[in-house]
């Protein structure tokens, strides 16, 4: 019967590459009994001997936390393998050796394959394999599995070890006097005939709180042994809730001792570029202004590139398609209503939304650059500090950042917050964020009234949304949802150089999502409103007597104090509850219907003033969220009450904000 070698190592340590290099095509794949974990087994020849090699799943530890760990642990403890080859990633040796210590504790005969030494060399990591071998007490063989280097030496070391008795090594790792004493006590009571596993390993696992080993021990002892065991176990484990941590730490101490004399890294203790950048970008005082400056630069570039360079590109295309479609309908003698629907509904409504694509492309490319660089986590961090400064749970800002893309996942992201108070606040303030669907509204009004201050207006709207969210968060946390502020830490990943692929993918996901919405929700809303604008039969289309006009006229007086009490604006806002992009589409349609061929920008200039445009923008930023967001609020809070509350309280805040802008502006003589 051929000797068996178990191959074990961390994920991505090159274990499978080594297995393939040793066995070539001579292997087969099955499953471990009773589990879905893959079992790979193969043969290879060394000298005159044919050796069987079993590739165990990639694992970091030999606990009982996953099927992979259990499979590897049970196989090694079964005594079936004659030798264990532990593949260790030489570039990440300290982390990999944690598993090695556990293998040694299990009494396995181990050969360490120090893999990827070429990569370690290129990273200037100096490895003393002799010292490693001496400190670990096992053979250490440098390998480069991908280049088939060191394989012969590795096989030779494994075969040599097989011949040595005993089958299990007698390795003892010290956890310090106190824990060692506890281990010794337990070792005595589990050192019985019915238990085949190494007693010391069993004792350590019991102190680590390993339930699986505890069940195994209890199932293997006689009733008297069990009574004795329980008494000792309770004694040694009493008042030692931190034992598992101390044991894990003991292994790390051992790894540190092994590597401190055998491994030298070039950059240990040296601050990286990431840390130096973070000292500036997450600075207590400069962090927030820098975040604001970066966002302002993003908007400035968006308008410079998207409007000045690419502006008119899609608009020209939409106009061309409109004319072609109208010409086609004329040629086939289509009825007037169909030509009206195509011109005002499709081109005037849906088409006008598409005209903003160049700006959206640039905006999402720039946002993609920020995201891919790792900066967004820093933005969350500086906002976290700001929220804490006003007594709010900073963690609620993370769902808000998600809400900048779309409020639906923003509301859903609140479920990651531990307590209900934080969740409710995060949900109820999320709709104040400038989600992607509000951007076409901003762009349309900026093009009409503030073409020279586009970045400033856009930036101000984003900031206003955050400020209102902070204010409402504060109000909600001091009234409806009182509670303590819990402490948490954000992980700041290292900065990366953004890749073109990621940036383009992010941009495309956003733009394709935008196009899909234009072709579905917005199309349906515009079509429905077009029908309402033409009914009842005989009235002037898009007139105040149409159903649409009557609905608009009914709502419009509410907005008179905010300066835009006309029925078209009211209908536009009303349609925005279905989907925010529909506001622009609806305005495009109703104005195109009144004056054939008029561009939305000119129509807006005729219907609004710069001041009323501003108050309308504030309203669209803050008022009732779209139905998808309301449905998500209902689902996430488990109550329709909070969805209704959100709809009405945000409408009230939007209205108050818009009225304030208009009335104060008028008093200041800006109207």
């Amino acid at each position, binding site marked *: 019967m051929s000797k068996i070698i178990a191959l074990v190592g961390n994920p991505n340590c090159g274990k499978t590459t080594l297995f393939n290099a040793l066995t070539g095509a001579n292997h087969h794949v099955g499953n471990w009994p009773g589990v879905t974990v893959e079992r790979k087994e193969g043969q290879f020849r060394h000298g005159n001997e044919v050796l069987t090699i079993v590739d165990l799943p990639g694992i970091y530890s030999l606990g009982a936390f996953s099927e992979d760990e259990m499979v590897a642990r049970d196989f090694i403890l079964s005594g079936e393998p004659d030798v264990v080859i532990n593949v260790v990633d030489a570039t990440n040796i300290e982390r990999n050796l944690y598993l090695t210590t556990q293998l040694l504790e299990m009494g396995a005969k181990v050969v360490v394959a120090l893999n990827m030494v070429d990569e370690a060399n290129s990273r200037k990591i100096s490895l003393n394999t002799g010292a490693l071998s001496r400190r670990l007490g096992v053979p250490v063989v440098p390998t480069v599995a991908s280049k088939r280097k060191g394989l012969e030496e590795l096989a030779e070391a494994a075969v040599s070890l097989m011949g040595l008795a005993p089958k299990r090594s007698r390795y003892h790792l010290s956890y310090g006097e106190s824990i060692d004493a506890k281990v010794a006590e337990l070792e005595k009571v589990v050192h019985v005939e019915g238990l085949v596993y190494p007693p010391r390993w069993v004792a350590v696992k019991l102190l680590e709180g390993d339930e699986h080993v505890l069940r195994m021990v209890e199932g293997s002892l006689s009733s008297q042994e069990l009574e004795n065991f329980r008494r000792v176990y309770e004694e040694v484990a009493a008042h030692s809730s931190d034992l598992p941590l101390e044991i894990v730490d003991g292994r790390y101490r051992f790894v540190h001792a092994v590597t401190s004399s055998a491994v030298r890294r070039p950059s240990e203790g040296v601050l990286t570029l990431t840390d130096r950048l973070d000292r500036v970008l997450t600075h207590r005082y400069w962090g927030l202004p820098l975040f604001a400056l970066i966002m302002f630069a993003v908007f400035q570039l968006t308008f410079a590139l998207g409007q000045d360079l690419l502006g008119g590109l899609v608009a020209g295309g939409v106009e061309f398609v409109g004319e072609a479609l109208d010409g086609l309908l004329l040629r086939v003698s289509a009825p007037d209503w169909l030509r009206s629907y195509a011109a005002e509904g499709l081109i005037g409504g849906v088409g006008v939304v598409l005209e903003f694509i160049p700006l959206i492309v640039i905006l999402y490319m720039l946002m993609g650059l920020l995201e891919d660089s790792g900066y967004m986590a820093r933005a969350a961090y500086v906002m976290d500090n700001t929220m804490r400064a006003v007594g709010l749970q900073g963690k609620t800002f993370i769902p808000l950042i998600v809400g900048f893309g779309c409020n639906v996942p923003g509301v859903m992201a609140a479920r990651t917050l531990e307590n209900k108070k934080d969740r409710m606040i995060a949900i109820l303030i999320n709709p104040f964020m400038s989600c992607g669907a509000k951007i076409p509204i901003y762009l349309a009004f900026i093009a009409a009234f503030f073409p020279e201050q586009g970045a400033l207006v856009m930036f101000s709207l984003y900031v206003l949304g955050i400020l209102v969210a902070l204010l409402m968060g504060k109000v909600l946390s001091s009234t409806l949802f009182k509670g303590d502020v819990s402490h948490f830490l954000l992980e700041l990943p290292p900065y990366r150089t953004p890749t073109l692929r990621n940036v383009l993918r992010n941009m495309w996901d956003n733009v394709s999502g935008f196009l899909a919405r234009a072709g*579905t929700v917005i199309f349906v809303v515009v079509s429905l409103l077009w029908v309402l604008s033409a009914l009842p039969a005989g009235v002037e289309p898009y007139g105040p007597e149409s159903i649409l006009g009557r609905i608009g006229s009914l709502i419009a007086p509410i907005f008179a104090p905010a300066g835009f009490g006309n029925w078209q604006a009211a209908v536009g806002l009303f349609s925005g509850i279905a989907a925010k992009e529909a506001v622009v589409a609806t305005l495009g349609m109703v104005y195109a219907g009144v004056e054939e061929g008029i561009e939305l920008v000119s129509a807006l200039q005729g219907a609004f003033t710069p001041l009323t445009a501003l108050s309308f923008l504030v309203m669209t930023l803050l008022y009732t969220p779209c139905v998808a967001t309301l449905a998500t609020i209902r689902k996430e809070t488990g109550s329709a009450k909070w969805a209704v509350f959100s709809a009405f309280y945000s409408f009230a805040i939007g209205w108050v904000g818009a009225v304030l802008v208009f009335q104060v502006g008028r008093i200041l003589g800006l109207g």
Partner: protein
Amino acid sequence: MLKELLLEISASEYISKTLLAAKLGRPEGLIEDGLAQLVRLGYLAEGSGSSSCAVKCGKCPYASLCGQDPIRTLTITTAGQKYIDRH
């Protein structure tokens, strides 16, 4: 190392594996492992600032954008705080 790591985290304003590695004089891979161990042992609780992949976004055209780059957070649990207080 876990003790030092937990104490260092409790004194930090944010988690930077590179900074922790530099402060503790250990490689970043080991710090990552240590954080995972502290989470597993119940001294830290992990959170992710993103709607989870388990959320059914249905036919939402923006579904592919969700949960792409979650912002990871760590909270010191009651057990973690007790340990810190004892040391």
